[in-house]
């Protein structure tokens, strides 16, 4: 599997008395794409949002077990530093109501960078990596909200790249996009894999099969508690799943 980037050990997540995720242990490899699949409401997003501690924003959330980034416990890290190293792209493109330039420069500025020429460099580099530069290089001062949905999502990816993260979490990044924009995002994910560890939640099994190296299948019992059922190389999961529920899900028998 190579180097381990993220690791969960007996991790459980509660919202008040409700158990959203139970006893999850998983190792996520560096510089690979790991897809998280499973039916709605099985805790995929909660799982993803653990790695950058976005669940901390929910006042009654409580966790058990441990989670590591490069062997370091994420609850012992400074949350700002953690989120700089672990970026996130959301389901719905959420560019700020600012110019394209200011959107990409937002993260570096928040981390104290003021030098204009350095910012310009970072903005160009990030937009190039997100395959958006050629489309927007002449209107960097235009409002980000004038872009199409697919462009907005690539802008959000550029915005995440601008703080030079090591991990990028993607929460169904293409579910609000049309098929062509979706293919562009998928091609981008394959490229980004060279330099970043990517964890992607997706509803779309073809997408998981196309873009990922590893796949984790989540499922829920009657109590709606999410559990990790099966995890392995994508090829193995899709061709010879070991668990009956995985097989039923990927062959479309439910979900």
């Amino acid at each position, binding site marked *: 599997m190579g180097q381990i980037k993220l690791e969960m050990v007996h991790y459980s997540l509660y919202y008040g008395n409700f158990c959203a995720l139970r006893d999850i242990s998983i190792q996520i490899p560096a510089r690979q794409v790991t897809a998280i699949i499973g039916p709605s409401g099985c805790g995929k997003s909660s799982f993803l949002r653990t790695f950058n501690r976005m669940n901390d924003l929910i006042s009654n959330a409580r966790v058990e077990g441990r989670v590591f980034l490069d062997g370091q416990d994420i609850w012992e890290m400074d949350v700002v530093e953690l989120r*700089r190293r672990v970026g996130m792209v959301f389901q719905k493109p959420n560019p*700020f109501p600012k110019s394209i330039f200011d959107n990409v420069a937002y993260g570096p500025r*928040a981390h104290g960078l003021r030098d204009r020429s350095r910012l310009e460099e970072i903005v160009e580099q990030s937009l190039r990596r997100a395959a958006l530069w050629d489309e927007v290089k002449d209107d960097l001062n235009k409002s980000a909200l004038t872009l199409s949905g697919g462009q907005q999502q690539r802008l959000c990816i550029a915005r995440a790249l601008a703080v030079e993260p090591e991990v990028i979490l993607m929460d169904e990044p293409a579910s609000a996009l049309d098929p062509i924009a979706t293919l562009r995002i998928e091609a981008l994910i394959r490229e980004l894999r060279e330099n970043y560890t990517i964890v992607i939640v997706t509803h779309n099994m073809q997408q998981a099969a196309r873009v990922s190296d590893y796949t984790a299948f989540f499922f829920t019992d009657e109590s709606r508690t999410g559990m990790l059922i099966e995890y392995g190389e994508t090829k193995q999961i899709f061709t010879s799943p070991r668990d009956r529920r995985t097989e039923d899900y990927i062959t479309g028998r439910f979900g």
Partner: protein
Amino acid sequence: MKGKKSEAFWAGRVIEGILLLDALLAIVVIFLIGLLILIEAWPAFRKIGFVPFLLGKEWRPGKELYGLLPMIVGSILVTLGAVTLGVPIGVALATFLAEVAPPWVQKVVRPAIELLAGIPSVVYGLFGLAVLVPLVRQIPVPGNSGFGLLSASVVLAVMILPTVANISEDAIRSVAREYREGSLALGATHWQTIIGVVLPAARSGIVAAVILGIGRALGETMAMIMVIGNSVIIPKPLNSNPLTIFLSQARTLTGNIAVEISYATGLHENALFATGVVLFILIMLVNSMAHLAMRRRS
């Protein structure tokens, strides 16, 4: 029974009719008020002329001089002072309530702000008279009586605080969660998120809050009369420091009407109604600006 409507049907129609009448009544009343003020004011505009009335620097009813400029400048300056003091505090308060304060603090502070809105304006005037005027009088500048723009601005700032704080808080609360999460996920701190994303995204709502506050400030009468001094002068700095303009006495448009209407007759009375027309138009302009800002928000 065919074709016959039930009793409940007719009761419904009657209630609908009464409600419609109510709505029409509101429109008719506002229209009639405007019309009657305009009719009373018309002789003043005709005899004095629009431009001399609006830009004349002298208001001396005894000499048949009716220039409204001192009161226009007075109203604008005191409103400016109130906005300068009240808006930062109001927006800060709104940010605190919407983003920082724990629920129990909100439960104490929010009713307190609402109470502020319910205090009669004459009580604010008393407070200004008893506390602010003596305090301002301590500032050692020749000609400073304590009565004037500064005292009035402070009183007015407190009076517009509930308007600014309440509407700004709504605007801040309605900023989409996606923006906050987007900012936090980039490693921005809570404060960076508030200043970099939340407040800019709430900007048009905050602008609407400020404009409504301005409308409230322009219309305030009683508290102004009690602390502003009511001299018919165009405020000027008392010494070489331009800020001492706020130690100058002044008179507002509203105060002009309230102070003189009890003994005015003839053209003087018409001129006071004309003052009302100017105020009416000013406030209508400010309110429609607020509506425009609100519409851009949604």
